[in-house]
């Protein structure tokens, strides 16, 4: 009994340390964002601001084109989230439920594309979009992320768990395959759809690399890119940057807290169970 108690205390200490390692930088960012002193990294580093201020948050709105970047981010993220949910569900349904020639081959090809590192695809993607004259445009920002293979895989796995009887009952009731998808499968796939939506939102909202490559004027920046542009070789306004960063992270944080259980379900349903 005593040994069990000691073990429990040991686990709690390990968890506390791990949590501190992960959450520490975030808490420090919050602290910096309220700091009136610009030289936050001067030795000795102060974990709590000596002079507390909200000016950094005001300045994010007043001194930067934050509104425009926010609009860009919201636009890109909303469209990509909606299209990812819809198209990955549609493709997942087709791969899970429809019999057609080459189904396994196509799915295999799709999956194998996951093995190619994203970095390698940057150049060809850029060249293709350049050919279509889509560089530095909303289309260029949005189109490459309209649907993701991982999401298709997740939806396929989920749809495969739905009993075949349900589909057949709907067929006998008079449904077409699209209606089965729309009226029977989608409504009962909310956990998987929510997981896809959350992952896509998170990925799209925080995406940095692709906007860096595809945009070159400040008015096309998304929030992560806009914030990063505040860092220069000569001088960085850390409190302003941190205030902006905290603002950016608020939506993902809120979504994570509200939909925490869907994250877990999403991970579970994308597992490799038979």
């Amino acid at each position, binding site marked *: 009994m005593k040994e069990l108690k000691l073990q429990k205390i040991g686990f709690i200490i390990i968890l506390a340390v791990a949590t501190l390692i992960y959450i520490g930088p975030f808490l420090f960012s919050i602290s910096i964002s309220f700091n009136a002193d610009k030289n936050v990294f001067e030795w000795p580093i102060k974990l709590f601001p000596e002079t507390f201020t909200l000016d950094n948050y005001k300045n994010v709105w007043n001194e930067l084109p934050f509104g425009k970047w926010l609009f860009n981010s919201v636009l890109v993220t909303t469209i990509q989230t909606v299209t990812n949910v819809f198209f990955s569900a549609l493709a997942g349904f087709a791969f899970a439920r429809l019999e057609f020639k080459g189904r396994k081959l196509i799915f295999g090809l799709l999956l194998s594309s996951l093995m190619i590192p994203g970095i390698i695809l940057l150049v060809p993607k850029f060249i293709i979009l350049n050919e279509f004259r889509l560089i530095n445009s909303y289309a260029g920002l949005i189109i490459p992320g309209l649907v993701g293979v991982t999401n298709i895989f997740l939806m396929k796995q989920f749809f495969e768990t739905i*009993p075949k*009887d*349900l589909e*057949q*009952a*709907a*067929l*006998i*009731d*008079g*449904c077409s395959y699209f*209606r089965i998808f729309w009226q*029977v499968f989608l*409504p*009962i796939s909310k956990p998987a759809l929510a997981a896809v939506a959350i992952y896509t939102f998170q990925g799209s909202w925080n995406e940095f690399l692709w906007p860096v490559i595809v945009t070159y004027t400040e008015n096309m920046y998304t929030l992560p890119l806009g914030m990063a542009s505040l860092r220069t070789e000569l001088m960085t306004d850390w409190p302003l940057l941190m205030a902006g960063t905290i603002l950016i992270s608020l939506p993902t944080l809120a979504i994570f807290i509200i939909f925490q259980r869907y994250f877990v379900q999403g991970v579970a349903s994308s597992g490799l169970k038979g």
Partner: protein
Amino acid sequence: MATIDIEQLEKTYPGADTATIKGADLSIQDKEFIVLVGPSGCGKSTLLRMIAGLEEITAGSLLIDGERMNELSPKDRDIAMVFQNYALYPHMTVFDNMAFGLKLRKTPKDEIKEKVEHAAKILDISHLLNRRPKDMSGGQRQRVAIGRSIVRDPKVFLFDEPLSNLDAKLRVQMRAEIKKLHRTLDATIVYVTHDQIEAMTMGDRIVVLKDGIVQQFDSPMNLFNNPQNKFVAGFIGSPSMNFLPGIISVDKEVNFISEDLKFAVPQDLKPSLKPLDGKEVVFGFRPEYIYDKAVEKNKRLSEDMEIVIDSLEPIGSETFVYFHYKGNPKYTFCFRSDSRHQYTIGETVTIGVDIDRLRFFDGKTEKRIM
């Protein structure tokens, strides 16, 4: 309601070496309750799903009310199906589950309401109409699944092992209710089960399937009393028929001779057994027609057979007595005894088989000789 005619129906799955359904011929009358029965993998569900249109027909033809159905999709066949796992839409209420098919067929709202409420009343689920499937028991869900098929008023009802997921008591109750429903609806029903008791108690006629081949299509009592082959004889009846291989020897009298048993077959059977002189046969005798000679005096029984009791299975009113012939424990047989007779394991008893109930099957083809 409707007739169903199945002519030389075949089903071969792509890449399979043998057909799952081989040349099935069935003619189902209007308002008949037909049960498809057979062991696992015999093709009974496949045959039902071919009628439903959920499986493509490889060859042959399927006619409902004289109209060819092979190429029609399930929704155009005017059938309704009840699945083993209920297959209710989990996100819809009971009302919506039952109304879904009607809505798709653009039935007016008032009519939908009327039909759903009527079906709910028949099935005694009116109080559940606003519930979702997850809030109901297995029996209630099964009623909803049946209700969903009733509201459509289809030509044919198809049931795919609908009671398999229910507990024993509920199964018996639902069995009676489905039979009652059949009388109320005056419907043509095709019902799949692997449970021969379910088949015997529910079907007007029963189709016994094995390896995709229809073994016999007959009334329950005919299947029991006049099985066409050894498989049907063994499949129908519980405990199943006892079998003993041997030969027929026709001399002055006709004898059945096996390893350690010899008995004279009644003279009146001589004409039909004469051509089988010296041929291998299988002697079949049902547990119901074996009697303890010390108890049963009035029946026309076969010669004495000395048996040793191996085990006893009391089920209440009766006891299943498992035994072997004295001196040969190779074959084990069974007979049903009134539970008032107390037997003990290892006891030697003299029994006889009702001469009028003897069955002989061809040793090679397994077809019934008599």
